[in-house]
């Protein structure tokens, strides 16, 4: 299951992805994220919270990559936070540096 929690009350605006983001969920996620981008078109600083994301596959990673590129084109800043476990593993496996969090969690 997938869910986006959009918190537009604080700065930076926060997009928290919850559950799993795989080929089965990307369409739903794409729509939800598009909705968030449209409703907050003026926002210039986003925080992408991946701490509650449990599963990520290449299709999901591609979606995040597209999101990052989109915001970069809009000269908006995207800060990634909280990826862990399998999600972090996927980002590292694909060497998706633009999606690396600013602070890597300490490895156990």
């Amino acid at each position: 299951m997938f869910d986006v929690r959009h918190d537009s009350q604080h700065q930076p605006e926060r997009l928290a992805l919850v559950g799993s983001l795989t080929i089965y969920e990307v369409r739903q996620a794409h729509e939800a994220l598009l909705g968030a981008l449209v409703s907050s078109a003026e926002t210039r600083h986003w925080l992408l919270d991946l701490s509650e994301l449990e599963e990520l596959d290449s299709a999901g990673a591609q979606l995040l990559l597209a999101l990052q590129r989109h915001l970069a084109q809009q000269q908006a800043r995207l800060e990634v936070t909280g990826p862990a476990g399998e999600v972090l593993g996927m980002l590292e496996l694909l060497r998706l540096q633009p999606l690396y969090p600013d602070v890597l969690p300490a490895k156990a």
Partner: protein
Amino acid sequence: MLNGDQWSQLLQGFIEEASDLIKQAEEYLLQLDQTPDDEDAINGLFRAMHTLKGSAGLFSLTPLVSFTHHLESLLMAVRDGQRTLTPPLVSLMLRCLDEVASMVSLIDVDSGELPVDETHQNELLAALAEHSGQAVEQIPATQVAAPSACPNRGRLEKCANCDADGAWHISLRFHPDLFRNGFDPAAFIRYLSRLGDILHLDVIDASLPSFSEMDPESCYLGLEIDLCTDASKAEIEEVFEFIHDFSTLRILPPNSALEDYLQLIHELPETDQRVGRILVASGLLTEHELEQGLALQAQASEQKPQLGSVLVEEGMVAPQAVNAALAKQQSAREKRSLESSQIRVAAHKLDELINLVGELVISAAGAQLRAQSHGDAGCVETTQTVNQHVELIREAALKLRMIEIGDTFNRFHRVVRDVSQQLGKNIRLEIRGADTELDKSVIDKLADPLTHLVRNAIDHGIESAEDRLAAGKPAEGQLQLNAYHESGQIVIEVADDGRGLNTERIRQKAIDRGLIDPQANLAEHDIHALIFAAGFSTADNVSDLSGRGVGMDVVRSVIDGLRGSIEIDSVLGAGCTFRIRLPLTLAIIDGFLISLGEEYFVVPLDMVTECLEMDAGQLGDSAYGYLNLRGKPLPCISLAAHFDLPASRSKRRNIVVVNQGRQQAGLVVDNLHGELQTVIKPLGLLFQHLQGIGGSTILGNGQVALILDIPSLFRHLQNHVEASAGDLRQPRMDISGF
């Protein structure tokens, strides 16, 4: 659009395909139970699950898709080396496969609906998750598993260690449908990292459209990978074998010539600069080389040498290694083409064809007979050619129905594994002659009797490990399934090295059940045969598996129904062998035509060993008796007397000696007419109880001939001999001089 019927038909096709895949998967799993590291088996298993999931998706069988998805994910992890298939995991996977099989069998072909036992599935999935959970703790997900000893493994930086050797460069571009078909490139990268160290990896997102325009389920990505490995090009290619149809793959060996890199740059859809920079960044090209190369690119390039010769020239690999890799690729390709060259045909269509061929055999024989009586030489020659061709068609048609028994045998790995685990016995199954071919309808009917014999052998035959050790046998019991040809018949053996049949106990039981007279003095062999009597069971404790007294008589009747026979070889304390003899096919046989007065009979040719001629006066007119054949008694049946036909008036009689297994008998007949091909027509309901007749056939001249059922004649003869053991007049005559 498809109408309902077409849809049902497609769904039916899927169900068949799925059953095959499940069977394959089970075989692979059992193989992995023995050799957990067998990569081919892991790949095969993965492929089977993946295909199953994909096809189920086409039919919107969502419960099946999601269930197999879990199995597939687990297998993916196994393939990537993150988990190993431990015996408990194999057992669990087998149970999951059973669930998949039961789901497939529950699919409603008409509505396409699939009822699901969710409780059971959730149990299985929870157990699977437990296994997955354990493994994740052992291996942190962030670490890329790399087996090589290179100290820089898994790092993003260039590998200084291996720099001297250079690295393979792999370019991948994916088909947009890659994700939709259930593939995840990340899985292949993980798998690739088992071959060596990924020094460099770039996700090429050049063709990714803007966020609002993208189709999130399409794949827009490409990959540029530098891999430091000892693996061959073929091995690297194999990693991507699954997505062969959904990707464009370019692999450049280490230290490739500059023009190869340039050609690669040229072939890729992105701008030259992008890939060029990646190559420079990864140290495969210098900035200078790149500039020079791009400048040169306009000029006509020299003919590119074959990759193999480049490799050899570069001194990277010995020529043998290239050849070996090529041969491996070749055989993999041949195997693929072999798989795809098979056609699935409905069994009833084959039956129809064989039926028609049968009619053709009869009418061709009729035409030949006509031509011969007509005497026209040209006509005779033509009909002979036609007959030859009919013969060839017949053989080819029969071969269509022949399948190897190996598939049926292999199913017993599972039975043996499950049953022996249940009973706490340690049993090894050995299979021989798996390539022996047998008529499909025979094989189908054999599955149940064989299962029964195998279960019996495990349950009653093979002792517990302690008993075995006490008896001086190895603790591991052995069960053998064996198939081979013997004089036109197929022999199938189920042999164990267990305790053997207890003759005394069987005798006692038979007396208790009133099957034999307590005074009767039976040979050991005959006592053993008593276990086939209805309602007979010697097991002292009735178990789940066998011992309920149903079964052996069913085994016997199935085999009788196939015109076969079964015999037992048992040595107390050393083991027991059940030997089943079956005819090769049920439809057409090579026959030997004989006659009694005006009546024609056919004996299956492969049972005939020799023919003798003798004077009628020496034979007498009783139905049964003995001859002395080269010093051995030969039991004889006078067919005329046996079938109540008028006694023959001819002076000379013929004796056809037939054999079955180790038994021999003589059939006393009037005339011999030689070989002919016979299409067996089953007897109608009215005549099915007839003893000694197995069927009928129509001769070329339109006359009906009856086909003798030799095994039943043998039984009849035996009963008669036993009944009148006292008053046999023997030997009637001495023909030992022959």
